[in-house]
């Protein structure tokens, strides 16, 4: 019995450690900028004391008065549509000069926290506020007070909003661009290798040709070659092709040496081809092992009926190997969507065409004081892969079990 409850506890603890970062991510993305950068995400769920600055009244209000009545929350939330400040007011920080007890005749600046209900001297008037935000500011004679900015500490009630998402998706053009670029890269870089690998896997499994087994072993052992080894020569190759294409473009369209004439060496197309090549070994390994396991009699009878290899492939093999195709496509999709290094070396490097991981990596720097935006952007980058992953988990696990050799 003890072991039973111990296993509940240990597993619970591990799962808790695994979930906390997600809670941190989502809660930070739903907070306001000030909250996100001043207090940790765990303070978002309980009333937390945070400082705000409010002004007693607008400059335009020029009426001579004895007493001014107002509400701190009204003042604070004047121009706000979201993240409405609410809660209980703890204290106001007042900076003022008082007579210095040590040096007669001189004054010194003091900072003092004044709790609710206590009278304080603001610009010669008596300022009192209550916990619900009502304040009154009274003077002994009729005056025209100048607006005063005060720092107020409020036990902020938990509040969440989707402002960060709206900002990164609509006001900032980097995130939508990154999202579109990631789709541009990922879709062909998933479909093309599946097509090519499925044909090759079929040939390796069911067709006779010289050197078949050796070729297969070579193809599969390329799975573990670190891709870093190939980057430089590939890059050089692409720049060679690009300068040819530029020359061709100049010759055909008769344009001068301008930017519009230049064919980029680092482009989406180079990313597609490179990702395709890097994904092929695993794809062929997974698919070939699956296709070899299909019933031989089925294929033989199809051959006897006079079906060509292409017909067998499209009518029999493809429908039968949907599970294997699905599991590889998830692998490749996740791998390409989440890839940073290949995109960094071979992908387009102009700001509007960066894929999401590169954009996110840059945002780690640019948004280091706007953590709500950084986290919102990260959430957006994860939605697509996590949805794909959760909806096709079964196939992903099958693929993992079949080919647990490719290391990222």
């Amino acid at each position: 019995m003890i072991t039973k409850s111990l296993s509940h506890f240990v597993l619970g603890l591990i799962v808790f450690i695994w979930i906390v970062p997600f809670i941190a991510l989502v809660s930070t993305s739903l907070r306001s900028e000030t909250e996100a950068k001043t207090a940790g995400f765990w303070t978002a769920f309980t009333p937390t004391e945070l400082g705000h600055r409010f002004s007693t009244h607008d400059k335009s209000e020029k009426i001579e008065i004895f007493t001014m009545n107002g509400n701190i929350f009204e003042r604070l939330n004047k121009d706000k549509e979201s993240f409405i400040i609410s809660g209980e007011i703890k204290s106001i920080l007042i900076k003022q000069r008082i007579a210095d007890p040590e040096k007669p005749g001189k004054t010194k600046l003091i900072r003092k926290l004044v709790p609710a209900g206590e009278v304080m001297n603001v610009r010669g008037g008596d300022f009192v506020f209550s916990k619900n935000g009502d304040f009154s500011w009274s003077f002994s004679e009729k005056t025209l007070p100048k607006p005063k900015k005060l720092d107020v500490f409020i036990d902020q009630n938990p509040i969440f909003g989707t402002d960060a998402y709206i900002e990164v998706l609509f006001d900032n053009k980097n995130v939508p661009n990154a999202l579109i670029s990631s789709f541009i890269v990922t879709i062909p870089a998933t479909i093309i290798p599946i097509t090519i690998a499925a044909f090759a896997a079929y040939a390796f499994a069911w067709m006779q040709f010289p050197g078949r087994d050796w070729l297969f072993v070579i193809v599969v052992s390329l799975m573990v070659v670190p891709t870093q080894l190939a980057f430089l020569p590939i890059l050089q190759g692409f720049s060679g092709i690009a300068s040819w294409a530029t020359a061709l473009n100049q010759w055909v369209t008769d344009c001068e040496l301008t930017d519009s004439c230049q064919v980029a060496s680092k482009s989406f197309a180079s990313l597609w081809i490179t990702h395709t090549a890097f994904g092929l070994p695993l794809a062929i390994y997974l698919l070939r092992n699956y296709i070899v396991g299909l019933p031989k009699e089925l294929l033989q009878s199809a051959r006897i009926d006079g079906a060509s290899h292409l017909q067998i492939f499209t009518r029999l093999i493809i429908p039968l190997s949907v599970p294997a195709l699905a599991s590889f496509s998830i692998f490749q999709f996740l791998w390409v969507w989440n890839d940073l290094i290949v995109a960094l070396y071979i992908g387009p490097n102009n700001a509007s065409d960066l894929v999401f991981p590169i954009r996110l990596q840059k945002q780690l720097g640019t948004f280091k004081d706007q953590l709500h935006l950084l986290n919102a952007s990260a959430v957006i980058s994860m939605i697509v892969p996590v949805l794909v992953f959760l909806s096709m988990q079964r196939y992903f696990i099958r693929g993992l079990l079949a080919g647990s050799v490719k290391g990222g």
Partner: protein
Amino acid sequence: MRSLKPVIASNGFAILLTVVFLLPITAIFLFVFTTPIDTMLAKFGLWLHAVNEWSFSEFDTEERFSKIGFAIRSVIIAVGISFLYFWITNWLNMNLAMYREKTSIGRQSNIVESIQPWIFVGPTLVLLLLFLLVPALSTLSLSFQESDGTLSSRNYAFLWDSSALGYLQFRLAMRNSLMWLILVPSVCIILGLLIAVLADSVRWGVIAKTFIFVPLAISFVGAAVIWRNIFAGGGIEALETINGSTPSYQIGLLKSLLGHTAEYNEPLYSLKFWGNFFLMWILVWVQTGFAMVIFSAALRGVPEDTIEAATIDGANPFQMFFRVKLPQIYSTVLVVWTTLVILVLKVFDIPYALSANDDDKLLLATMMENARNNWSIGGDNVDNLYAAIAVMLMLTVVPNMVFNGWRIRREQKELGN
């Protein structure tokens, strides 16, 4: 009877030529031909902009919609061309064979049969040759050259010459890589085993496993952003004069738990030496799910009778695991270990995102990037130096490659080949 070989060779050559010329030209033609779609979509976007009165600028709308147009047509063209290849080659193969051998159906099908496999594996072989095999070999040769092409061992000088560029960095990178290599796979395997065993014994195990599993879908940079909330510093500092009256908030959870106030701003992963372990933990968090899934399946495959026998003999849960189950899934543990080792060697994103230029956190993969970007002042041979480090990276993978190759060979034999 004439030999079929010349026919096969010439047909194959004809098909190859057609493909090499036809496909790129078709692709370029289609691409140029469909360019107006971008403008049309941009106009459509501007119309939507006007109707819905969007707040952002018209220029952005135009740019975004023409990019969507570009996306759609380039995706369709790229995918279409790869399908076109198989369709065209097969059609050519059939018709060329029929044209060359008008009478004998047997000879026709012989020609088709011997060209067909190469059509199917052709793209794969060409791509792997051009994008993996040749580049790998050319990196190897690049690493033994000066930038002008003369033979030299200077790029490897960081191995022995303490005045060479990258001497210190290489040692730090090797130290860190070694720590990563030992710690990350072992922690992943231990945690993965633990979770797999525990999850099988409780009713909510499936849900627990899903939560552990989800980080596998997330990019390393995303994981870095996620863990930044836990490890990084920042927050509001207490006002000096009224110390204690205002809260001193720390925004990193772990930093807060360790009692760091907001004044102590350094992220945990930037700590000298110890920061490495926090970076490692991020990878462990991502990869444990992988180990767990494999072990979970392997443990379920342990024969029931051995477990029953152990139960009858009165084995306690610990004995059951260490004496009965673990020895039977030993080979699976080894497979997971090699996979993780290869992954760790290639890991780049996490240290690059969080501590890009910190020598103390270098790994071989990040050192390569640094060689290319930051050392250009120090030497004219940065590309060659990069190649040399890549070769060192490759060398560390070799033992694993050998093991994997052996494993796959054995597996193929078991599959009956």
